[in-house]
């Protein structure tokens, strides 16, 4: 017996734009790479755990290989020492890819306005969604995921290249 969409549509045909179909598929199966460095990573553990359950949003397949991921969640402070590592991993992720900057430190350096902390990761890599908080509550990160999903649903995925060629970070030669 058919369930879900098959039960409703049976053998009939649905017409839609290819972009919409791809966007629809993408938004429900993001594979995040967690660039967790500090306190925010502990909050990410909560997002992934049973209570908040990131799998409700189709993003529970956490990959620790950048080659297999399309969503980078930068959770924690990025120091100057860490910046080349962040850049390298971002570059290793295949297109299309999205970046969430989680927490005050990743967004702006937070209250670490000093000699060692990068004042916002958007000086190194492009960012799609910023999440405020120190650390943000799990709901705030889930909200960021939904924002990315909304972007993906709207995106002209095939026609337009997502690669941001205009972005030039401090580590781009």
């Amino acid at each position: 017996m058919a369930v879900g969409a098959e039960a409703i549509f049976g053998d009939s045909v649905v017409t839609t734009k290819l972009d919409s179909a791809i966007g629809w598929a993408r938004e429900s199966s993001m594979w995040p790479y967690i660039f967790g460095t500090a306190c925010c990573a502990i909050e990410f553990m909560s997002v992934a755990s049973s209570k908040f359950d990131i799998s409700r949003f189709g993003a529970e397949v956490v990959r620790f290989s950048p080659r297999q991921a399309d969503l980078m969640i930068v959770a924690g402070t990025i120091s100057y020492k860490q910046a080349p590592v962040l850049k390298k991993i971002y570059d290793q992720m295949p297109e299309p890819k999205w970046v969430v900057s989680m927490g005050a430190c990743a967004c702006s350096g937070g209250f670490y306005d000093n000699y060692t902390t990068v004042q916002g990761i958007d000086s190194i890599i492009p960012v799609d969604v910023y999440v405020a908080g120190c650390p943000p509550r799990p709901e705030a990160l889930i909200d960021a995921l939904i924002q990315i999903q909304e972007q993906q649903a709207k995106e002209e995925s095939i026609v337009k290249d997502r690669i941001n060629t205009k972005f030039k970070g401090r580590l781009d030669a």
Partner: protein
Amino acid sequence: MHSHFDTKFKGLYKKDENGIFVVEQTFIKAAIKCLKEEDGFHFLADITAIDYLEFKKIKLTRFAIVYILRDNEFKNTITLKVYIEEDEGDLHVESISDIFFSANWAEREVWDQYGIKFLNHPNMKRVLNHKEFEGHPLRKDYPKTKGQLCTKTDDLMDEMIPRLEQKGYKSHNDLMFLNLGPAHPASHGTIRTFVALDGENIVSAVSEIGYLHRGFEKSCEDHTYNQIIPYTDRLNYCSAILNNIAFAHTVEGMLGVTIPERAQFIRVIIGELSRVIDHLVCLAANLVDMGALTNYWYLYNPREAVYDLLSKLTGARLTNSYMRIGGVAHDFYDGFEEDLAGCIKEIEQGMSDTLNLVEHNRIFHDRTQNVGIVSAEEAINSGFTGPNLRASGVAYDLRKTNPYYFYDTLDFDIAIGSVGDVYDRMMVRFEEIRQSISIIHQSMKILPKGNIIVSDRAIALPKKQNVYNDIEGLMGQFKLIMDGVRVPTREYYGAIEAANGELGFFIVSDGSGTPYKVKVRPPCFPAMSALPKMLEEGMIADSVLCLGSLNIIAGELDR
């Protein structure tokens, strides 16, 4: 206490107003050697430096180095200080890394942050800042916000090749080099270990830290004491409140105040709860690392219950900032006791579910027993504290040896291991959770009524009611917010038993509301420096367990 030192170095040292022994530069190594070998000060807690450039009182020289040692029973502490004379534009002192293994990284940190060289040190290079960094950030004339871009990661071959040569490898063509971290799922934050492999065996390992160096110590130098409390939250972010307590306890020690009894008990209760949730996350992550994922949910989910309780109590889940100098921020809310009982029930359930799965599990035993063994002697020499040291069979716990608050009236045991392997380190933590729960139960029973913060207006903020209704209250509030708590001129080391071990703060105060210098003695730092030795001759799969079982938290490791 240190009679040999007293007689041998008579006239060569001076005790200053802070109780610190000032030793001449040329005798420092001999003095420390004598203290270790003859007087039994066998534990080096920390080494740090002070830059007196902007200090209001003129000191002998601009730089001084401070050594903090503990004796055999861990009861007595001795602090030594050396003023460093400039020698043809160069600052240097004899290294003690051949006397104490834990001095190795501590001295590297002093070089990195202050630019004081240690002669005959085996590997005098930076440890926290990156390779391309110029200057020494904790010097007073280094601008706080002057960041320096790092373009390349250190390949660490300059450390690896001598190490391989030591082990008798003339060429390394047959070996495979592998980076474990800094971005690795099992690297617990941002820790990098670079290993040389022969098949699956680790021949040689080198660790690099500093990827989460966030300039805590520099940031402290322009914040008032109470403003630093949020920074301390982010040291060991798995048990933020214990860091708050350690800092507040140290500053209260400098002020010479005793906080009200109720506040002390609140600190004990919430501190022990933090210890429990810290151990939970450590054990949960350890078990995931060996493939036992189910236990992760069993152990991690009770944390959510504790987060809810802490949110109600402090307003934050993770970074609580619950302590104030002189007491705590809020009293327990109505219904706290029931919530606490609910949390403890969940924790106990999670523990028993996990132990049912792993306690007699053959795979668990095979993976953990006799893996990553650290003997008691090595552990002390490396500066281990907390569960890691106790797993090696040394019953050192500041709550017992130097009891603070009411720990000496509470009935609890120190859990110790017998072998010092991964298994012991995990099982010690399981037992400590039980002991902490028992402490919480006992303390809740005898929780006295009363104030939660000292009533001294120079330390604690007045009630909001007074701020709005009378001039004295308003002025008190204004003064304290603008100037901070004024701490008398002192150099002081204070420590408590945090979840990971001895968490100490060495604070230099110049009498103002802002500390002149703050140095953290994180329990992770010495443990991390011993990791490469632990990994060598082991299997690559075990390296993940070794790292996890030490519970390295990057926030307090790199500060």
